[in-house]
């Protein structure tokens, strides 16, 4: 039972990879990439959690109370916002590819190259 977060993260990673490989539209592949990214968030936060710990915000709890790890939260926090802009850049690439080649299918894009 205590392996559950990591099992869920592994499932998300593999499901997202399957989505990227098997999608026939670039935009579907980009959305499956979002699922893969969220697998890393779950792993990081799962590593930092400690049983009975509270959020690392000591505004109203005494300083010596048990808290979860704040360092992994910093990593995931900036990651969430930045992956959104990276996804925006990938979407821009997909729009340009459609304008240039007329289709969003990865197979068609390859065929037009040679």
């Amino acid at each position, binding site marked *: 039972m205590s392996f559950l977060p990591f099992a869920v993260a592994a499932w998300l990673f593999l499901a997202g990879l399957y989505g990227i490989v098997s999608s026939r539209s670039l935009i579907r592949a980009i959305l499956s990439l979002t699922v893969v990214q969220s697998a890393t968030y779950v792993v990081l936060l799962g*590593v930092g959690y400690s049983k009975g710990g509270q959020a690392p915000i000591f505004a109203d709890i005494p300083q010596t109370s048990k808290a*979860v790890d704040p360092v992994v939260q910093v990593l995931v926090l900036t990651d969430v916002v930045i992956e959104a802009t990276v996804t925006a*850049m990938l979407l821009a690439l997909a729009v340009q590819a459609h304008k240039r080649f007329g289709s969003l299918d990865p197979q068609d894009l390859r065929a037009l190259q040679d």
Partner: protein
Amino acid sequence: MVLFGVAAVGFGVVLVYGLSGLPAFGHYHGVYGKVINGIGVTERHATDLVTALNFDIRGFDTLGEEFILFGSVLGVVLILRQMRGEHDRPRQHEADEHTFAGASEALRALSLAVIPAILAIGIYIVVHGQLTPGGGFQGGVILAAGPLVVFLAGRYLRMRIVAPHTLVEIGEAAGALGYALVGLSGLVLAGVFFKNFLPLGIAGHLLSGGQMDLASAAVGLEVSGAFLVAFGEFLDQAMVVSGSPRS
């Protein structure tokens, strides 16, 4: 697909084996986190340790991440630049601007009234980063959602007036520059890049944490500018640009 299936099974086995080597969920072994939790409040005079780590103790990492954001929005602007063969559609008159079914004048008036509330919440979250959950990144995204409400109520051209091209680009660049300047001021005034150079204040009060407020504001400005630039580019593509690029 068969190749992927085989590779995925192999990768999945290695992944699960690797993840099972981690300490069990709930038994946290790291030392750094416990040390920060123990001394963070008295060291940095800030009650929200996540923001303290983000902008003060590990401020250098945030500089790198912020420039990733800047670079990817730069990529969006470059990729969607106007190519030969594309032109802007003739500017629509205000009266036949895109109207969604059911969009009445009340909706449009309400959207303009909601913007100050969203901006107030966004600025509150940016400024109170070192006291409660919040900070530059969260508040910046909330601030970017403000002008978007105008677009959602059906008036795209008005959104362009509320958040014009030049202004948001200058805002984003100013935010990035501001954050780098905070780091450089640490170098100039305290001898170490990104060392806290302002007086630390009392934990729990608004002006505590030294440079965290400044850094938070700079990052908030940059993140909101970045998202507004990206929204603007996509809006231009969907509403204004037409034609096919000639290679």
